[in-house]
């Protein structure tokens, strides 16, 4: 029994330590961002690698997500005969929860994991020390551009995914329920949904982006133990990002009505 409590205590102390060092990292990144002290070239190449090259995945995910929303809503809609509410139901779910959440999970797999692997490889091959030896600040050269890149990518991808998911849902409604896209659009704009719902989802996407960027940079920078260590760091990043996204989603859902 005491083993159990030792393990539990160690788990919570470890989690607290990780969250604390992420907070310190956030402070250091923000101090660079306020002074606009970040490498422009790294920023553009990161934005391209993270943002533009994730577009195909976001595209496929969003279209299918829209379809899934309609398939799942279909039995309930049929039961109440509320075909006019399909647009509202799908739009509400997509804009507030599913759009930001699924985009974040997909981007976390592609961008977050890749970022940790890159930074981790740099750390175990002592490239960070080389940067410091050349008097280049690793935070403003490597970390801050990646932070900005991930947050921007997730924010823009979520807008993109929201639109595509609604298009996917509108066209999935035709064969499944016989709901024409015009009726879908009417349900979407009938006044039950407002700008607040869209903003709610976009606020979430920014918060998810911050969590993902901090987790992937933190685990990448603290990698130790050669190539197996990089694998462990990548695994830790995807797990912590996924769990963190759900926990933060819960908190934001309450904070932003």
């Amino acid at each position, binding site marked *: 029994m005491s083993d159990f409590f030792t393990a539990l205590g160690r788990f919570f102390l470890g989690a607290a330590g990780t969250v604390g060092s992420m907070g310190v990292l956030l402070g250091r990144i923000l101090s660079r961002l306020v002074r606009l002290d970040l490498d422009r070239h790294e920023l553009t190449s990161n934005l391209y690698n993270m943002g533009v090259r994730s577009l195909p*995945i976001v595209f*496929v*995910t969003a279209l*299918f*997500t829209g*379809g*899934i929303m309609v*398939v*799942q809503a*279909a*039995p*309930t809609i*049929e039961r109440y005969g509320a075909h006019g509410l399909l647009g509202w139901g799908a739009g*509400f779910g997509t804009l*507030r*929860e599913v759009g930001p959440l*699924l985009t974040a*999970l*997909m981007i*976390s*797999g*592609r961008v977050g*994991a*890749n970022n*940790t*692997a*890159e930074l*981790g*490889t740099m750390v*175990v091959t002592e490239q960070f020390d080389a940067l410091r030896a050349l008097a280049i600040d690793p935070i403003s050269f490597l970390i801050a551009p990646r932070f900005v890149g991930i947050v921007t990518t997730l924010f823009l991808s979520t807008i993109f995914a929201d639109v595509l998911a609604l298009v996917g849902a509108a066209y999935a409604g035709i064969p*499944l329920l016989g709901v024409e896209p015009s009726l879908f659009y009417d349900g979407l704009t009938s006044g*039950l949904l407002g700008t607040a719902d869209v903003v709610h989802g976009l606020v979430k996407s920014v918060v998810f982006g911050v969590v993902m960027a901090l987790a992937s940079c933190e685990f990448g920078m603290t990698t130790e133990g*050669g*190539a*197996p260590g*990089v*694998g462990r760091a*990548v*695994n830790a990043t*995807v*797990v912590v990002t*996924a*769990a963190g996204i*759900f*926990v933060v*989603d*819960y908190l934001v*859902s*309450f904070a932003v009505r």
Partner: protein
Amino acid sequence: MTDDDPRPSLDEMLGIDAGPSFDALKAPRQFFGALRDLGRVARKTVHFTLRGERRPGAVAQQMYEIGYRSAAFLCISMGFIGMIFVYQAGLQIRRLIPDTSQLGATYLELLVRDLAASICALLLATRVGAGIAAEIGSMVVTEQLDALRMCAADPIDYLVRPRFIASLAMTVVLTVIAGCVAFLSGMWTAYAFFSMNPRTFADANLVDLGDVVIGLTKCIVYGAAIPIISAHSGLVTVGGSEGVGQATTRAVVWSSLAVIVLNFVISTIGYVLFG
């Protein structure tokens, strides 16, 4: 797995230096090539599952690795999902009609039919998929797979088969456990925020046989797809430690994408069959 035979492009054969030209067919060609390899891995895995040699302990160890060690992560995430879902749904229902008594029944139906299996599979795709790809990928780059072949052990029989069986069993088990956690946390949210009686909330009237069949089918299909896709992306690892990083990323992305696409396919078929 792939024998890379870079054929000269038309530009190269004609001696035109077009610079970094955009090859429109490259991505589809790579995609279908990967799909063919994936089919080969899947076929061999099923073959060895049916008639491979039994090594005591191998499957149990993978069950511990895939199942037991993912349980806490899944339960925490699904618990939060349950709270978010019921809170948001309750808020919306109250905007529309004042009667929230159907909330629990609808939530349970959705949980059984889709939410439990699909969200668990997305989470398992990140944890289990990344783990399998990293393990097999680092074995590939350190030439341990060649060593296995030299010992006349087929890597798919030795490495992929135990993971496949363990994932198949454990995805079902974990989905049931995490689904219960999500339902209980949803019940608590309904009680705390909408003051709904837990007895009213725990209403299984809307769950019928079709929902259970669709939910279980999803568990089994995801449980089969995730290890095969991740093992494939581990097996085709090239290069050193960067290659392992890429393999991990690829495993997570393709497993998640497969879960989403399969979800759409199974849900549509289920809706057509059961209504």
